[in-house]
């Protein structure tokens, strides 16, 4: 049950996970904001990382405190000199992403989100096969069977079932199945679930399930899988939940097989998938880059044109291959999400708390920026990828927006060239 009713405090939309829960309240008088209406561990942990800064945030150049304008000027000069910049992290909102694309297009930077591998699973699925998806309200209204594919859901999305009101008394109460993982502890009261295919990699079982759903002959089929296949075929509206970050390395095979199951079901009944992911701004940035340029992340405006490389342009690979000579790291939501340890020079934009975790070093500019949904307004895309939710500032810490810093970097680089 929620820890306390959201009776007092700031009516808040939580920006710290892509469910973007909007039924909570926040009290911001205390050093650490107090969450009302939820005991979501993910939100609580995020808020604990965003204690009110004890003093005015300070930009740094090579470990030395400097004024904001000086840090921006220094960062612009360094960025302009890099031959192949990498923009990593990408933890920002839509305004930040709009400014970031303009900067990336001007500098030829390669852009990859902190959770780029998981994000690319969804992107490549859409590029290769397409998908049938649903949204939170649709799931609540319609689902009579929800299958959580290889994800406990609540480990990383603790509010999910409450958010979709699947625990509501008198609500629709769809059948709930965990596939490939055990039934997690801590489900909301009243939710009953069963689990199957819980030992090891469940991909072979998923293949079998796809065959059973398609009424193909499967020798020695698992009775549990056969039962689930029957249940899926009988459901009026089944939803397969999946979480790219929770899948093994062959995530794309998983994703395509899930879509095959849903496509088969949609021949005679209704079914859909819902993805859990794209948090920390990654989903929003990917959408913005796609609409501005036509191409998603892991793209650069390089000498040969707009090059999109969903595998080769992964940040970890580029850094390991010494293929980039500078890293601009952006993480406005999570101060603990530090840039990867790399010898290449860095420009880091993050909340003030990040400065304390970043060991001072040469070749680094740090610029403190605001967190949309906490101390700045903004917009984020929800996990279902079709609803953009506005965020309001719950407190004023006197910080600039990342979008502002990125735009000024672009202006300086544009003026210099």
């Amino acid at each position, binding site marked *: 049950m929620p820890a306390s009713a959201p009776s007092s405090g700031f009516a808040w939309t939580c920006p710290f996970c892509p469910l973007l829960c*909007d039924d909570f309240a926040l009290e911001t008088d205390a050093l650490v904001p107090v969450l009302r209406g939820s005991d979501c561990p993910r939100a609580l942990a995020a808020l604990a990382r965003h204690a009110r800064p004890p003093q005015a945030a300070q930009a740094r150049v090579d470990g030395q405190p400097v004024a904001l304008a000086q840090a921006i000027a220094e960062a612009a000069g360094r960025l302009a000199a890099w031959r192949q910049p990498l923009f990593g992290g990408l933890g920002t909102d839509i305004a930040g992403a709009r400014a970031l694309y303009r900067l990336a297009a001007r500098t030829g930077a390669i852009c990859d989100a902190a959770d780029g591998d998981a994000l690319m699973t969804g992107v490549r699925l859409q590029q290769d096969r397409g998908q*049938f998806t649903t949204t939170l309200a649709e799931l609540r209204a319609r689902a009579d069977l929800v299958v959580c594919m290889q994800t406990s859901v609540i480990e990383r999305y603790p509010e999910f079932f409450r958010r979709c009101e699947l625990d509501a008394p008198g609500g629709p109460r769809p059948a709930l199945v965990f596939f490939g993982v055990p039934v997690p502890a801590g489900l909301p009261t009243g939710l009953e679930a069963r689990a199957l295919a819980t030992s090891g990699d469940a991909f072979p079982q998923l293949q079998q399930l796809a065959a059973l759903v398609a009424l193909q002959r499967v020798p020695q089929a698992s009775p549990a899988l056969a039962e689930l296949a029957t249940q899926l075929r009988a459901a009026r509206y089944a939803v397969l939940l999946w979480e790219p970050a929770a899948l093994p390395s062959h995530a794309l095979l998983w994703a395509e097989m899930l879509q095959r199951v849903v496509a088969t079901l949609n021949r005679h009944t209704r079914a859909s998938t819902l993805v859990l992911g794209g948090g920390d701004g990654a989903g929003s940035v990917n959408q913005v880059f796609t609409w501005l340029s036509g191409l998603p992340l892991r793209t650069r405006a390089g000498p040969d044109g707009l090059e999109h490389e969903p595998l080769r342009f992964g940040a970890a690979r580029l850094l390991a291959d010494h293929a980039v000579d500078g890293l601009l790291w952006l993480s406005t939501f999570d101060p603990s999400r530090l840039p990867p340890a790399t010898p290449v020079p860095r420009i880091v934009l993050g909340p003030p708390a990040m400065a304390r975790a970043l060991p001072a070093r040469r070749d680094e500019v740090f610029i403190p920026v605001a967190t949309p949904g906490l101390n700045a307004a903004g917009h984020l895309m929800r996990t279902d990828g079709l609803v953009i939710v506005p965020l309001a500032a719950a407190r004023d810490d006197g910080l600039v927006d990342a979008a502002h810093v990125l735009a000024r970097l672009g202006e300086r680089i544009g003026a210099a060239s």
Partner: protein
Amino acid sequence: MTTCRLRGARLFDPANQVDGQVRDIVMRDGRVIALDPRAAVDEEIDVRGSIAMAGGVDLHSHIGGGKVNLARLLMPQDHRRGIDPWPLPADPLELASCGHCAPGTLATGYRYAEMGYTSAFEPAMVASNARQAHMEMGDVPILDHGAYVMLGNDELFLQMLAAGEDPQRLRDYVGWTIHATKALGVKVVNPAGISAFKFNQRQLDVDERHVHWQVTPRQVVRALARAVHELGLAHPLHIHASNLGVAGNIESTLATIAALEGLPGHLTHVQFHSYGREGPRKFSSAALALAEAVDAHPNVSIDIGQILFGQTVTASGDTMRQAANADLASPRKWSGADIECDAGCGVVPFRYREQSYVNALQWTIGLELFLQVRDPWRVVLTTDHPNGAPFTSYPHLIRLLMDKPFRDEQLARLHPDVAAQSPLKDMARELTLYEIAIMTRAAPARLLGLADRGQLGVGAAADIAIYPEQGDAEAMFSRPSWVFKDGEPVVRDGRVVATPVGAVHVAVPQFDGGIEALVARRLGRPLGMHKRWAVIGHDELCTCCNGGRVLASACAPRSL
């Protein structure tokens, strides 16, 4: 306050009955002004040997919103040139952006402006996705824009209709939705059919009942047309009729016109809704039947949704019909979504082939419609970008309409049965520049209630395209020598020279605020649109639209 005179072009300005006469156009402060021809100006541009028209107005083009972005993601092959990457723009003013049938928003703005278009309207904004639609349109440089919000498949409307709610309440709900989403108009897509598909209904004709709500598309069309009329919106209800793409669907289209009972309605991409089931293949042109119906119903306007051959991607709110067509996808992949008890979408790549009997017939049906409807003021030139073809094919389409020998040449390349039997070969009509100016400028602006756009009378916005005159209409409309947006040059000799942020057109209807209580009861739950952010405010709209101006049209309520 600088004045600029465009000297010596032949002007085609149908809203002011100017048909090719040589007229100077003088601009000041973004407006067309009257000035003595001898009076001095700050700048004079010699445009003799050219034709001048108002900037083009595209009233139906899928330029922004969730399904458009899904189309971009679905089509990586549209964003490279074979195995090579898409080259960077040669023009330093342009930011890298690419795509042919699913271009990025930046490329969308550049390419439209390069053809002399200065406004484009997204016809299928999902209410729960309205912010994204406005953001994407705000990121289309140069063009003014606006959107029609989709209604008639949202559960709240269907529930109210099923409950026999007072038409005034329905009107207020429609008004509130326009207000909340900052729409310019209202569109209905496959009335009640998108919702029905969520209940596993696979077909819904005009008088069939939605399996759950038990309402018919006829009731939905009638109720929405009445609400739009009573609210006083300039643009009639924008209707994507039932049974898109289905052989014999002309009956549904004519029934939809009848459902309006004389109220204004704009039937969109009618090419996809004008099919008979005659002949050996049970698929035939019903263009004449539709043209006659349009002629007979002065309350009806249309846009065509012409198909042109080649690769495209179809992006529609019509989940029911897109799911049915998904097996025809080329390449074989597609995406669909059920959205927020509100709407849906389906994105299906498609390659129209000259040698396909069906595609060839679709091509002829579109052209037959253009050439057979008598009143050009009720016909708008569209390809339903990108569903029939990308908007960049407009110059080619214009040549097809203006040049009978060219049209015959193209017809001869099609599937032989179509080439031999189509009535198109006997249609001698060639549209004039005056008629093209109506269908691409004056009529769409009038149908949208944009009094100062689509025309170049005194006081009009100085959105102007200058095309050096030449015999080949395709070449001419591909490359204006000048394009002005609100009086400022944005294109010079086919090259973008400025990228201002466009304005957003919104309608401001009056409605009984009491409806908000009902909506809040419905929406004020922990998901769906939270009542706290269900309405996009003026300032937020500006943020979404990249700081562009908000051009609000007041609506004068009307009675039946």
